[in-house]
């Protein structure tokens, strides 16, 4: 037991280091579970792209739909990119927090170490960011191969999608840390995220919605993500609008992070 006897003064690591260690832990856990997530993170989005973008898109284009000069594939691919990011981000915000606090209680183990709660959350969101980056880049590459992008600015679309995903990850982490059972999460996925996915301009221009629903759709974070990705993909960026989209998504990310920190502090430091 020489290790126990020798008590070298331990170095005091910084916040960034500790957040990075939380990130490294998430990555290590993912090495055991990635198989279960491949379908939902990579294959499903690509099937969507193929069936809706390419095959259904062909029918839409033959009807001569007015999509601002875009083919249906060009219209829908950036929308699907943002929606995929939403789904990935929401999942990464919700379930790891549920597991860490309740199912496995690993966050309670971390809370007993020098890691502070904001560092824990930063590590968790950094991991979500990394997964979003990989997921969106893969999706964008496939979409580009289908010929869905017309502008070199499309190279920035994955970054916009990552921001969109994080704007869902942080608030869902806050909800997961606040609620007492995962039923609330199931409800959010079914009754908030799914309608958003279908109605926030991913598949059709918002003007097609009934008048009263249009402003509701404008207010959803997914529409801002879709609009941002679409403008980049088509190379048709309006600086003021882009700023509003980015600002809105950043604000949601920040709000979610503040609320998640508070809720986690309540759970782990009571």
């Amino acid at each position, binding site marked *: 037991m020489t290790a126990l006897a020798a008590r070298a003064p331990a170095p005091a690591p910084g916040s960034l280091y500790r957040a990075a260690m939380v990130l490294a*832990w998430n990555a*290590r856990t993912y090495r055991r579970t990635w198989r279960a997530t491949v379908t939902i993170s990579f294959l499903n989005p690509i099937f969507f792209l193929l069936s809706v973008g390419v095959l259904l898109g062909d029918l839409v284009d033959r009807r001569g739909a007015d999509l601002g000069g875009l083919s249906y594939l060009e219209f829908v691919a950036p929308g699907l990119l943002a929606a995929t990011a939403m789904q990935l981000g929401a999942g990464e915000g919700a379930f790891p927090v549920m597991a860490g606090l309740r199912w496995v209680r690993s966050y309670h183990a971390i809370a*007993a170490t020098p890691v502070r709660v904001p560092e824990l959350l930063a590590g968790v969101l950094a991991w979500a960011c990394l997964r979003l980056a990989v997921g969106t880049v893969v999706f964008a590459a496939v979409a580009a191969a289908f010929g869905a992008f017309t502008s070199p600015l499309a190279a920035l679309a994955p970054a916009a999608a990552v921001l969109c995903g994080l704007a869902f990850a942080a608030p869902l982490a806050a909800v997961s840390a606040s609620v007492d059972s995962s039923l609330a999460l199931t409800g959010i996925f079914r009754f908030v995220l799914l309608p958003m996915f279908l109605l926030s301009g991913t598949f059709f221009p918002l003007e097609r919605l009934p008048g009263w629903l249009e402003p509701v759709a404008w207010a959803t974070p997914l529409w801002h993500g879709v609009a941002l990705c679409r403008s980049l993909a088509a190379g048709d960026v309006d600086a003021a609008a882009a700023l509003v989209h980015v600002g809105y998504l950043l604000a949601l990310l920040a709000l979610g992070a503040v609320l998640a920190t508070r809720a986690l502090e309540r759970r782990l430091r009571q």
Partner: protein
Amino acid sequence: MVEARGLSKRFGDFLAVDSVDFAVVAGETFGFLGPNGAGKSSTMRMIGAVSPRAGGELLVFGLDPAADGPAIRQRLGVVPQQDNLDLELTVFENLFVYGRYFGLPAKLVRERAQELLEFVQLAERRDHRVEPLSGGMKRRLTIARALVNAPELMLLDEPTTGLDPQARHAVWERLYRLKQQGVTLVLTTHYMDEAEQLCDRLVVMDRGRIVAEGSPRELIARYVEREVVELRFAAGGDGRAGTLDGVGKRVEVLADRVLIGTDDGDATVAAVHARGVEPDSVLVRRSTLEDVFLSITGRTLVD
């Protein structure tokens, strides 16, 4: 190592810890003995710098947990009541990942993890996943994990609750060896045999307050007689206890048995028989901390 004065913890209207004083010195094994809900775990969480105190003073390593939580946690080893190992990871990875949170270099953590796995006899499970391990193995792994930062002070919250007798002894043996190496241990338990086996000094807690303090031997000498005569009666026989008044120094009537505190067990048994009381079974044994708790609070430790 730890100094508390007037330490309190409140959950809403409920006063979980009510102004307790205690001190833990380096190298000793200090115990909190009491039934569930006595405030032991809340006290441990305050020492562990994860739970803010509602009142009083608390110093751990001379630092205030409210201000220096991370610095305190850096030097602590914590074995929680409820296992929180990473089930997806291997035995070794659990130690490695945890050690990294303390800012220790990867190489050092690897060496320590290997040694600790040998210490808790899990070396041959090194690359197995944690999920299928037995309860006793998980507990030993949790103890190894708590040691990965070579803590100066170890906090163990009910380290053997829920384990079978064999696994409990394996854990006690490891803790005893740590104690011999000079590691300061603070533990909570509602098992009097655990407190007797491990603790140099302990406080007895009940309803958020400390009701007695001392070494196990001192407490027994102070609060109870040397021996206890346990009488068991067939159903409905408890009423006979009335005729036992004055037969020993202290008579406690419990649901399933009657306990008589005495300095001379055999003489007391003879006296019981002389009164014509005929229990189903008679047992003479040494007094334990359980009897101390019963004598102070009138209730048993484990319901």
